[in-house]
């Protein structure tokens, strides 16, 4: 039965007419001590096996998404003259970094249903289910989260930043900020016609601490007592050195 349904679906659906082929200027970002952000060039082409109905223009969306984590958004209110956190909404998973680059205004080129299905816009990339009973306006909290992240550029809406040539070649640049978290950054490509996703593909940018950064991070987590003692040793040694140097200068 299931097989029959699948066959029917395959018959009804046209063969994949357009495919996205994409690559990155680098798929590894090394966080070194003097890491100051990194710019990734994302480029690709649209592969066509057969002629396509091109009455609706082609659009391209590229998203880069950092590792997700739970967050709490708190709101202050005035209680007895002082400002106190009174309400909080927990967000189940929000990406630590999110950039969405498009060929045009997102709301014009992408339908709401497709956005819901693929979680493309920033709003949809954040997963928040339910709010505590005492909070009636949880969307305000989500919007506040997005505003704060847009402000410090860990969320970026780059409308019109994707350059599309002859509906075939596309390219864009995404600037990864200096305050970058380690992890796998999912990079997704969407071909859009008439609001619908025609094809999509995904690749990953690996962001990793290297060298001294890696060493210290591992030591702190694997040998915490050693790390703590080493920190104290450095502190005492530095304090003693400064004192000795100053005594020498004065004498």
């Amino acid at each position, binding site marked *: 039965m299931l097989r029959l349904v699948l066959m029917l679906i395959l018959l009804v659906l046209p063969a994949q007419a357009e495919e996205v082929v994409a690559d990155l200027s680098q798929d590894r970002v090394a966080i070194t001590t003097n890491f100051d952000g990194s710019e990734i060039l994302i480029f690709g082409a649209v592969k066509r096996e057969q002629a396509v109905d091109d009455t609706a223009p082609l659009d391209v969306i590229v998203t880069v998404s950092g590792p997700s984590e739970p967050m709490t958004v708190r709101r202050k209110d005035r209680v007895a003259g002082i400002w106190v956190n009174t309400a909080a909404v927990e967000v189940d998973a929000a990406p630590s970094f999110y950039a969405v680059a498009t060929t045009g205004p997102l709301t014009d080129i992408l339908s709401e249903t497709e956005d819901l299905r693929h979680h493309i816009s920033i709003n949809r990339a954040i997963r928040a289910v339910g709010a505590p009973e005492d909070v009636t306006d949880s969307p305000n909290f989500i919007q506040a989260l997005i505003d704060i992240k847009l402000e410090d550029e860990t969320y970026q809406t780059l409308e019109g930043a994707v350059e599309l040539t002859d509906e075939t070649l596309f390219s864009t640049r995404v600037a990864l900020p200096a305050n970058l978290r380690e992890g796998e950054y999912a990079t997704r490509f969407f071909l859009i016609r008439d609001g619908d996703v025609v094809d999509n593909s995904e690749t990953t940018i690996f962001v990793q601490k290297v060298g001294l950064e890696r060493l210290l991070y591992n030591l702190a987590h694997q040998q915490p007592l050693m790390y*703590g003692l080493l920190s104290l040793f450095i502190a005492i040694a530095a*304090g003693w050195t400064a004192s000795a140097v100053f005594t020498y200068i004065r004498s």
Partner: protein
Amino acid sequence: MQIYLPIAEVSVNAFLLLGLGGMVGILSGMFGVGGGFLMTPLLFFIGIPPAVAVATEANQIVASSFSGVLAHFRRKTVDLRMGTVLLIGGLIGAALGVAIFNYLKSLGQVDLLIRLSYVVFLGIIGSLMFVESLNALRKSAKGAPVPTRRKHNWVHNLPFKMKFRTSGLYISVIPPALVGVFVGILSAIMGVGGGFIMVPAMIYLLGMPTKVVVGTSLFQIIFVTAFTTLLHATTNFTVDMVLAVLLLVGGVVGAQFGAQLGARLKAEQLRILLAALVLVVCGKLALDLLLMPSNLYSIGTGGH
């Protein structure tokens, strides 16, 4: 020059951190305060996650206090005996403080409580010191002899008397031990070394000479903050060594300058400056609570 901090996972300007460390180091050497009550809010402000800021700051205080205390050792202005009594009280207090902190946490609103206790304690101590040292300064300016503080109050009628030769005191160990416990509790709750409470307590409650107070306070702070650093490093993994090194390089140099500056100032001047500093920080924290914040919303990591 931007530096990426491995534990804090943010990129910051190295010179800014060196400068902040130096500034706080000067205050540390001058007044015998760890400077945590100044540095921790500054680190929040430049975008270091609060947990990392508190833990790393403790590590930096170890360095600047050590650098400062050596300078005081050379001038023989450290009362080791008094320091040890205070330290024993302090460690007991810190353990009690952690228990109180966890209890308050279970009630919620622990942040507010920390802020309020900052405002209240800084306010009370700052104004008391300010008024007292202003009076002392005015009297000495008139040429009248500065009255020595009461050498005999109830504090001197308690049992377990001990000689504190460096301080020139012969008093019971109970008051200094209690001061230690009290400061230990507060420092665990407020996340600071506690020098700004310890220094006035030693001057006004125990009647120690101001010159000895600073070195003795630094001596005690080293051990309390070292203990705190280890605790944070092993339980929360929040000590950032790169951040600590940048802060302490500035800090240890600053502490040396501070100790020299402090030696040149009169005791009354030193006290009035510390009082003014404490009041400024208190005023800033009070304003934060009273004025409407520019953004009502804030993001915290993790769920509850």
